[in-house]
């Protein structure tokens, strides 16, 4: 199995770290992984994106032009990546701040209002984990226990008290995500 994912949004939304957590989770279940960030000036305020590939085989190109799953957290990212989802693939968007919504009917479109939830519940820092939870509900590409193992490995010990909060966020995301089409 190979899952090719793009995660895109504004710098600061936790796009790159969400990708990193996915990559670490893949590592925990002995998969091949690649994590390719946009590292340009867009990281500082504009749009940031990261390509994550999880596979049971050796990964060839870390650079892709179509994806099994796209997670888009702002309008420019939706505009850029909606057309790049493979037919039959998955598009997840956070409804906050969108004025044009996905239009494709040959892909599965899901909405998750993670930003709204996070701000209403004073949980802005786990916003990306809520979205990750949503992803895992509909595409269980990694086990939640491996996500937590990966988090434990990638976070310094002084942050380990935050693990519980992150696990909670994953489950919230699983409840929040809704199919649109």
């Amino acid at each position: 199995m190979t899952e090719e994912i793009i995660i895109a949004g504004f710098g600061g939304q936790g796009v790159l770290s969400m990708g990193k957590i996915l990559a670490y989770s893949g590592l925990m279940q002995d998969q091949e992984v690649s994590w390719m960030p946009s590292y340009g000036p867009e990281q500082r305020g504009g749009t940031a994106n990261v390509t994550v590939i999880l596979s049971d085989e050796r990964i060839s190109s870390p650079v892709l032009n179509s994806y099994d799953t796209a997670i888009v957290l702002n309008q420019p990212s939706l505009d850029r990546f909606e057309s790049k989802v493979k037919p039959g693939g998955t598009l997840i968007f956070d409804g906050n701040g969108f004025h044009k919504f996905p239009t494709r009917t040959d892909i599965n479109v899901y909405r998750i209002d993670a930003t709204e939830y996070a701000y209403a519940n004073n949980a802005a820092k786990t916003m990306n984990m809520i979205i990750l939870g949503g992803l895992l509900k509909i595409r269980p590409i990694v086990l939640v226990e491996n996500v937590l193992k990966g988090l434990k490995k990638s976070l310094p010990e002084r942050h380990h008290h935050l693990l519980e909060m992150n696990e909670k966020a994953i489950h919230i995301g699983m409840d929040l995500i809704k199919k649109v089409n």
Partner: protein
Amino acid sequence: MNTDKKQNKEEVRLMKGNEAVAHAAIRCGCDGYFGYPITPQSEIMETLMELEPWNTTGMVVLQAESETASINMVYGAAGCGKKAMTSSSSPGISLMQEGISYMAGAELPCVIVNVMRGGPGLGTIQPSQADYFQTVKGGGHGDYKMITLAPASVQEMADYTVMAFDLAFKYRTPTMVLADGVIGQMMEKVVLPPFQPRWTEEEIKQNAPWATLGKTPDRKPNIINSLRMDANDMEELNILLQSRYREIEKKEVLFEEFDCDDAEYLIVAFGISARICQKAVKLAKKEGIKAGLLRPITLYPFPIEVLKKYAEKVKGMLSVEMNAGQMVEDVRLAVNGKVPVEYFGRMGGIVPTPDEVVEALKNKLIK
């Protein structure tokens, strides 16, 4: 070294290519890193500073005032028989060319890592392979060559850093690890190389008998210099260097082949382009095109013989590069008109996608 005991040798880690270079440098007994920050390779020095190897192996890590200073610090350290290295990205490597030429002239080993970005000029911080000519044709002045290793994965960033030191000392020549922004910035699984202790003073005397080690009552003093006023002396040095380059060309060529056995069309690509082309080869197969990929690992020495061999078998070759077509010239020289050799690439920091490569293969070769 206490770090040695802590390290589980089989541990698979996830890290960026740049981070892997830093870890590998410490582990292969590097004595000193001298560098100046520039995107997209700053994590090399950042990681070294974080790991504080001066507390464990005794390795020096120093941020110089410029790239020119860095390469000259490497020059000085190498003159003492030390394993010295620097790293930079394209504009910074341009600034180092004088020092590299001097080290080639002084027959000194060192490792230089270039994580290429788009140029010319200050360019962009996005990935590129446009320093191919600069690297393999001698970016500095004079008749010299530099062994060039082109990694295509994070694992190879670590492995080739170690290999580069071995080759540099074997042939007393500056050696380059030529990567690009993608490989530097991406994270993949990596198993780090085993720890080797730094050379002791005794070992330096044995392994680098040419090194300047201060007053040596037991032998004639070594002098390291790249200036030879007498033209006869200078020619003598050139003849020596050239014979060494012929030996390198004979013994050190490295390449990798993918799906080449029944290939009718051969894609030639190095570094990250080779990864993209691996996927392109698979996509082409689905369309019924028999394509294979030859990936030069050493760009100098260039895999001329294997290309000659494929020139007898395939209908055409496509050189895929993130530049305006540089390596394609070497492919054409190797093939010497036997089969058509075309180029496809993107420039200025744009990374080509596998689909684009397949399209180019169809449009330029198959038609």
